């Protein structure tokens, strides 16, 4: 049989059995669409988190008080058992490390803000002028905290966009006063709205000099120290140098944890990659179900078409020709179904993106390839197996079954 005739015959057979064709393609399409959409969801989650992390700033090393892993025995272990606080002086000392570009101390607490008779609970962040550079914020109005002595801050405040809208709905915020506890802060700037930022919504922050925040919260300790390395390659050096300096300052005890943004990213990446795989597994099950559906439909259809197969044999078709005709038909149907499902899956992913614009739900290439490949394979396999059996029958047996 010629190739063009084979194709024509397969298309004719597919169009002649509309119900079967539609069922088959639907099963295929649903399986592939499930794979595409679900992996888009999983991979979208991964990308979302990665992007959130990247939004904190670049080339960051984060120092937090306390130790989460043992560093062996050192002289300090015998002297004290409680970790020392991270202090502003620690942060100042870290500025001496050669690989360090910027150091930013961070104190965080919740407080009640009042302005013009309005009261609002907000997260107050105590930090320094460099914070804006490290976090790469943009100002909407006014300016950020001025550079000044870390231990003697002025009573100035920078607020997030949402806070501004709520405290000063109908007036310019810059120049106004906000009361926090028994202190009054002059608002000198408003941050541009960003929306996200890993747990801390920057739009709802009130930023004040670190020394004042510590005084308000009555503490000497810092929540975090953010260190920015000169470049990506310097990150490891920064980590090492920071640990050495802090160990010296803390009587030889390693009582801080230094994490790099990359390490966090890698962990989350791995975690969410696993999640995507899990989701892909669920999708694979739906694909397998689709394959079994295809097999059932094909079994029934071949049984129904036994007489046709018998007739073709009587007219001189060899077993090979019949197998080939069914193979082409199954391949065409699965390919059409798989492509239809791919389009459906893309549409599903696009719908997710339309509903949650910040969620990058794109199916990963490997999932698309695996989905399409599995669909084609199962479709062809389950399409051909029953046909093979039918092609082996003696023509008279096949003809007799109507």
């Amino acid at each position, binding site marked *: 049989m010629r190739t063009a*005739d084979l194709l024509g015959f397969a298309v004719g*057979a597919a169009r002649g059995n509309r119900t079967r064709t539609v069922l088959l393609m639907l099963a295929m399409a649903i399986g592939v669409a499930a794979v595409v959409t679900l992996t888009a969801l999983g991979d979208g989650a991964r990308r979302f988190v990665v992007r959130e992390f990247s939004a904190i700033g670049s080339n960051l090393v984060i120092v937090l008080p306390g130790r989460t892993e043992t560093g062996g025995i050192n002289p300090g272990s015998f002297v004290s058992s409680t970790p020392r606080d991270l202090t502003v002086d620690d942060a100042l000392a870290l500025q001496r490390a050669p690989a360090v570009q910027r150091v930013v101390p961070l104190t965080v607490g919740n407080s009640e803000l009042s302005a013009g008779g309005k009261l609002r609970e907000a997260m107050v962040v105590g930090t320094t002028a460099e914070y804006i550079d490290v976090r790469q914020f943009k100002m909407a109005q006014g300016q950020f905290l001025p550079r000044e002595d870390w231990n003697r801050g002025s009573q100035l405040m920078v607020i997030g966009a949402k806070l501004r809208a709520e405290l000063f709905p109908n007036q310019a915020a810059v120049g106004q006063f906000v009361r926090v506890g028994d202190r009054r802060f002059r608002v000198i700037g408003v941050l541009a709205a960003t929306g996200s930022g890993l747990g801390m919504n920057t739009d709802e922050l009130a930023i004040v000099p670190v020394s004042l925040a510590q005084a308000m919260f009555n503490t000497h300790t810092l929540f975090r120290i953010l260190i920015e390395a000169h470049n990506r390659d310097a990150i490891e050096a920064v980590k090492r140098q920071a640990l050495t300096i802090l160990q010296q300052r803390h009587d030889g005890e390693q009582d801080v944890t230094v994490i790099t943004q990359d390490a966090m990213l890698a962990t989350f990446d791995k975690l969410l990659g696993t999640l995507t795989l899990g989701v892909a597994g669920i999708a694979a099950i739906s694909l397998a179900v689709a394959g079994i559906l295809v097999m059932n439909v094909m079994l029934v259809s071949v049984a129904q078409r036994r007489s046709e197969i018998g007739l073709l044999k009587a007219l*001189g078709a060899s*077993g090979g020709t019949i197998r080939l005709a069914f193979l082409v038909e199954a391949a065409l149907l699965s390919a059409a179904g798989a492509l239809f499902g791919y389009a459906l899956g893309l549409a599903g992913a696009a719908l997710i993106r339309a509903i949650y614009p910040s969620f990058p739900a794109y199916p990963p290439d490997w999932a698309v390839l695996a989905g399409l490949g599995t669909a084609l394979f199962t479709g062809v396999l389950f399409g051909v197996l029953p046909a093979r059996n039918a092609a082996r029958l003696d*023509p*008279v047996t096949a003809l007799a079954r109507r």
Partner: protein
Amino acid sequence: MAAQIELQGIERVFHLGDSVVHALAGVDLRIDAGEYIAVMGPSGSGKSTLLNVLGLLDRPDAGHYRLEGRDVTTLSPDEQARVRSQRIGFVFQSFHLVPRLTAAENIALPMVLAGLPAREREQRVRQALAGFGLAERASHRPDQLSGGQRQRVAIARATIMQPALLLADEPTGNLDRATGDEVVRLLEQLNAGGVTLLVVTHDAALGARARRRLLMEDGAIRHDEWQGTRAHAHG
């Protein structure tokens, strides 16, 4: 001249549950090229089985079948398919047209399966459609055709590969008398053109038209009559 068809001791046994049915029990038969034969007999006498064995649709359990001097019982299924494609045409009682294909496509099917080039197919189909009075019906599907037209399409399909042997199983069984006669005349014309014609039928009138009649009973040929005169009988 060697016989076109030679059957020697052909047996075909079916197992139905515990009982064993000898559909063909030691059939010997010689058919020369161009003969016109009617196979008659009661239901279950083995007529259709004989036709299936002759058409290589069914394999005998014992015996030898020589077609044009070649033993075809030992051929592989694919070689048998080639013989069916080139040498044998079938006409069935229920036409066995492919419902989704048009009359022209049904007629072309054996050539498509044999891999003939499209241009030659078109030419032959056009000739066949004209020859069988179906030119107006070329693009109709079987369900848009009358019974007689369907059987004419089936005959056109059976002869499109110019076979040497035309096997018809109750070709008029699903047709009324007038249409049946028309179909029979068509088959006889083909026979007059040199094709060996073997018709299985219940219809005595149809049987009487054949130059040779085989009467089957219990899987054996009881009477072998030529032109109305008894020639010889197998016991």
